[in-house]
């Protein structure tokens, strides 16, 4: 994994973690406007990062496994414990 890809993966982990934490918080604070705004901001940022990462490097989920017509890159790209 290149330094650029690693940096983008770290960003995905940071924004993903923000969403994980806010999601559980919102499950017990259903009408917290500030948390809702923060979640929606993080979700939009994550979607953009996921799209860019999958297009540039390799698919994050099998939903993203469509950046090539010639190979099944979901099955070709590394798993997290190998990079």
């Amino acid at each position, binding site marked *: 994994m290149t330094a650029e890809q690693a940096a983008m*993966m*770290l960003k*995905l*982990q940071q924004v*993903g*973690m923000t969403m*994980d*934490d806010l*999601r*559980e*918080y919102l*499950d*017990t*604070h*259903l009408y917290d406007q500030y948390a809702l705004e923060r979640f929606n901001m993080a979700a939009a940022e994550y979607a953009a990062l996921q799209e860019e990462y999958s297009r540039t490097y*390799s*698919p*994050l*989920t*099998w*939903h993203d496994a469509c950046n090539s017509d010639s190979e099944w890159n979901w099955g070709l*790209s*590394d*798993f*997290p*414990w190998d990079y």
Partner: protein
Amino acid sequence: MWIYEKKLQYPVKVSSTNPRLAKLLISQYGGPDGELSAALRYLNQRFTMPTNNTKALVTDIGTEELAHLEIIATMCYKLTKDADRDQLFAGNFDPSFIEHGKALYYQDANGNPWTAAYIQAKDDPITDLTEDMAAEQKARTTYNHLLDLTDDPGVIDTLRFLREREIVHYQRFGEALVQVEDHYACKKVF
């Protein structure tokens, strides 16, 4: 339905081969208060939770525990994958190696296999959420014990993250418990 992301929830950095540490960490893989127990306990409780937001909470925390299971597995794998014969002996990893090689196995640090007896399901959300709070504290204590015996800086960083999540989940379950008690109090007809 679940969708897998090729991404660890938190980065794992292991400084050096250390099968002895892997043998300790495996307790949070398949031990009584480990991540497998946590994930299966919460996901199984979803069906008898009384409100949608409590179902959402045990779904989301149970799913996060699966991500923690993968983090523990990644650490154990990286700590053992390059270990030679001498290192396996020195790390007291040889008994596990006989049965499983370097494969991960759902067991505690003493080699006891995972059992469903570690978790409960009582069809009483107040009881179940109270068990969940205790489970998070037991996991937090186990992470404390692991941190006491770990000197790998990368592993310490990841263990501190996992310990922090136990504290957050304890807080969320506590909030859910109060809400479920209120839910039943409101439903009473005199």
